[in-house]
């Protein structure tokens, strides 16, 4: 019985959690918002996972119901009425134990999901489809009727039936077009929805008038079929956007971090880092990321700021030193005081730079809109010209208007409306399969236009993790001894030493009793004396040796051993760059890192054109210069310092390890340890662009054949409807090819 009750509660509660337009939101929001939590769950791939997730969530005390959504990779949890609010941590822990990474989604994000714009569109689509099928049935009967003619009562009955079905359907299902058309008309402009709305209403009203009069031509079928096909296009378009946005929100949600906030009374509370306010004291353990901008309040540590500045060498930070959100605390545990709300924080500066950069990009006009801008006035004048022409020829206003409507309907862009969305759906599905997430709906079009690829170094071209560079010169005994110390630390250099030892010996065990002094190094008291691993100063070496290596290892009675480190390139970085160069791309490297580090990475990745030590605004300046030279730039970057450049570039991509803000600014996010998704992304974008043009060609080609026929008055509603359907289906089939096509990148 417990099962039934749970299922019932679920049904009822879910209904409540989704406010309908008609019901008053205050009544529903308040209670349901306090008891419903939506989580993004990573790695949920099949029915089994879904079940594990639900079982794990139901096991948490206070949970009344849990339901996983496999398509959206989300889970909704409803708490018992009496249970408290905000108990997210036990849910995340429970899922963690079951093997899933999860994070709470911001409530405003989830509300967006509820008001999913694709859903009402699907209802309108169904209504239009129903009407189209039924009216077509009646119309085909009329048209195949053996010359029943206008006087036949069956003929008239069928027309009346068509009218009764069509008029309410047009009024309901056509609303997205009418409101859009009205919106632009009020601002004195024209878009594609204007001729659409005009054709639909003119044909509906004209047909109604002719039904009254009992003539034998009515356009209800063409009018409703047109609406049906247009709605398919609109729905496909909307679906790509909704899906991409949802996936992006999950990604960002999963990477949102926790902050351990210390209250006045000394208790520690775990809060999502987005809720941190200035003045809060936050405990940051070793190895954690700083959740906010602020200053160190107590303790000394080293900070890895590679994500923010691109500088790979960790920085020592003592009390009052400024730390930025996203950097990693490498040393000991510290307390920080958040200062994030001040307008001169790094985040705020980057935000301002991004806002300016994005404004410039906001003016980009989508391919379909550009086609529409030139197409809409043409359609209007063509229809008007036909009307005037037939009036002059003495056909009478009724016949002339019928022909003008036929022209409007024939030229009405169902195929044109489908051309781009169908390709977009196919392209984003293809990319999604390959681990690339397309975020911006117009991203593909902008990606296809690029001719310069600009890479960031740390974390983009490289893996962002240091590795031991001079391992070959270090003997086994030394490496083994040093790794026993190194394994005790989370410093990336120490980890790199441990990794190198692991690669050589198979396993590494940490020595007991190793002491770490944050910002300096490690020491270990042995019987023979003290062993040390750390900076030159820590190991008691002079200045001459200090800069020649990153880490030193000393033990009594032996010469100090130097460990050098490098940030290794992603394994296919050079191959990817070569592929881009062959395809005619100009490739550049812009980095905030030191000259030597950038120079060696550039030569290893076969990039001739590089610049080092750049600040965020200098990167933008470089992008602006390229733009001024007439180039369209693709920016690939991951750091916080790249975010403004990502926003400023014509198109952008970032790896899934990138900072939240960079992923937000990017058009596409790619997963995995390789760089080759960039090539796949560009190849797909270019192919998609070619396919959109092919589709436009199909749509226009059909117009070229049928428009003269319509102007000449030979097109009856049946021909119009069949021609329209055929061109729409052709366009869709063409787009479907993209999912499986073999692609090669060509500039």
């Amino acid at each position, binding site marked *: 019985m417990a*099962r039934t009750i*749970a299922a019932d509660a679920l049904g009822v509660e879910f209904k409540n959690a989704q406010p309908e337009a008609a019901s008053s939101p205050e009544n529903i929001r308040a209670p349901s918002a306090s008891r419903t939590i939506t989580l993004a769950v990573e790695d949920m791939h099949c*029915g089994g996972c*879904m079940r594990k997730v639900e079982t794990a969530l*139901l096991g948490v005390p206070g949970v009344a119901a849990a339901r996983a959504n496999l398509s*959206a990779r989300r889970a909704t949890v409803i708490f018992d009425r009496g249970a408290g609010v905000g108990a997210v941590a036990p849910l995340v822990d429970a899922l963690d134990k079951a093997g899933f990474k999860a994070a709470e989604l911001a409530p405003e994000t989830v509300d967006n999901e509820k008001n999913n714009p694709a859903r009402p569109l699907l*209802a309108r689509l*169904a209504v239009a489809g129903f009407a189209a099928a*039924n009216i077509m049935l009646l119309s085909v009967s009329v048209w195949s009727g053996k010359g029943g003619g206008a006087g036949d009562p069956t003929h008239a009955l069928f027309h009346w039936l068509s009218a009764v*079905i069509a008029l309410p359907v047009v009024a309901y299902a056509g609303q997205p077009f009418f409101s859009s058309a009205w919106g632009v008309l009020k601002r004195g402009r024209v878009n594609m929805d204007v001729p659409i709305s005009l054709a639909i209403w003119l044909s509906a009203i004209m047909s109604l008038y002719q039904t009254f009069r009992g003539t034998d031509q009515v356009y209800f079928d063409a009018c409703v079929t047109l609406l049906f096909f247009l709605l398919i296009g609109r729905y496909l378009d909307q679906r790509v956007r909704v899906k991409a946005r949802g996936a992006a929100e999950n990604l960002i949600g999963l990477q949102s971090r926790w902050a351990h906030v210390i209250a006045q009374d000394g208790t520690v509370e775990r809060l999502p880092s987005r809720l941190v306010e200035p003045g809060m004291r936050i405990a940051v353990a070793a190895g954690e990321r700083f959740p906010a901008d602020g200053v160190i309040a107590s303790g000394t540590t080293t900070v890895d700021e590679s994500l923010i500045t691109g500088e790979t060498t960790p920085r020592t930070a003592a009390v009052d030193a400024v730390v930025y959100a996203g950097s990693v605390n490498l040393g000991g545990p510290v307390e920080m005081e958040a200062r994030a709300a001040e307008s001169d924080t790094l985040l705020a500066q980057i935000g301002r730079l991004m806002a300016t950069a994005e404004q410039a990009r906001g003016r980009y006009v989508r391919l379909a809109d550009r086609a529409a801008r030139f197409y809409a006035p043409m359609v209007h004048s063509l229809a008007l010209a036909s009307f005037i022409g037939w009036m002059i020829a003495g056909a009478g206003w009724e016949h002339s208007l019928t022909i003008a409507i036929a022209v409007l309907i024939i030229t009405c862009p169902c195929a044109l409306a489908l051309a781009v969305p169908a390709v977009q759906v196919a392209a984003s599905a293809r990319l999604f399969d390959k681990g690339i997430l397309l975020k911006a709906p117009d991203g593909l079009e902008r990606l296809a236009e690029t001719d310069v690829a600009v890479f960031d170094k740390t974390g983009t071209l490289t893996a962002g993790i240091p590795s031991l560079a001079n391992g070959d010169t270090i003997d086994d005994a030394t490496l083994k001894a040093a790794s026993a110390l190194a394994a005790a630390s989370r410093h990336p250099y120490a980890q790199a030493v441990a990794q190198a030892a692991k690669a050589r010996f198979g396993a590494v065990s940490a020595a007991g009793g190793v002491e770490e002094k944050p910002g300096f190094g490690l020491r270990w008291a042995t019987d023979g004396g003290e062993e040390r691993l750390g900076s030159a100063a820590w190991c008691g070496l002079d200045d001459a040796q200090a800069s020649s290596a990153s880490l030193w290892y000393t033990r009594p009675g032996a010469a100090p051993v130097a460990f050098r480190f490098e940030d290794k390139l992603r394994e296919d970085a050079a191959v990817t760059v070569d592929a881009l160069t062959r395809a005619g791309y100009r490739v550049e490297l812009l980095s905030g890192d030191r000259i030597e580090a950038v120079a060696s990475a550039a030569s290893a990745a076969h990039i001739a054109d590089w610049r080092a030590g750049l600040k965020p605004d200098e990167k933008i300046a470089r992008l602006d210069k390229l733009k001024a030279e007439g180039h369209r730039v693709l920016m690939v970057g991951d750091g916080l310092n790249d975010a403004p450049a990502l926003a400023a570039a014509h198109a952008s991509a970032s790896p899934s390890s990138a900072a939240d803000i960079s992923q937000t600014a990017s058009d596409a996010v790619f997963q995995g340890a390789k760089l080759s998704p960039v090539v796949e992304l560009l190849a797909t974008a270019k192919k998609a662009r070619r396919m959109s043009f092919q589709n436009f060609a199909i749509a226009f080609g059909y117009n070229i054949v049928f428009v003269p026929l319509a102007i000449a008055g030979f097109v009856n509603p049946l021909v119009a409807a069949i021609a329209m359907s055929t061109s729409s289906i052709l366009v869709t089939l063409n787009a479907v090819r993209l999912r499986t096509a073999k692609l090669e990148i060509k500039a």
Partner: protein
Amino acid sequence: MTSLAWLIPIALFLGALGLGGFIWALKSGQYEDLDGAAWRALEDDPPEKPQAGV
């Protein structure tokens, strides 16, 4: 003519029934998770909530 008087309303009614069913399914959220629904059909029982206090 008389057969039409029956058949057309019946055809429209059946069509409307289908449409109504679709919109009901849409409103009750059955199109929210198409991938998940495909898997749920294979499951024996939905997971049960452990009894409180156990």
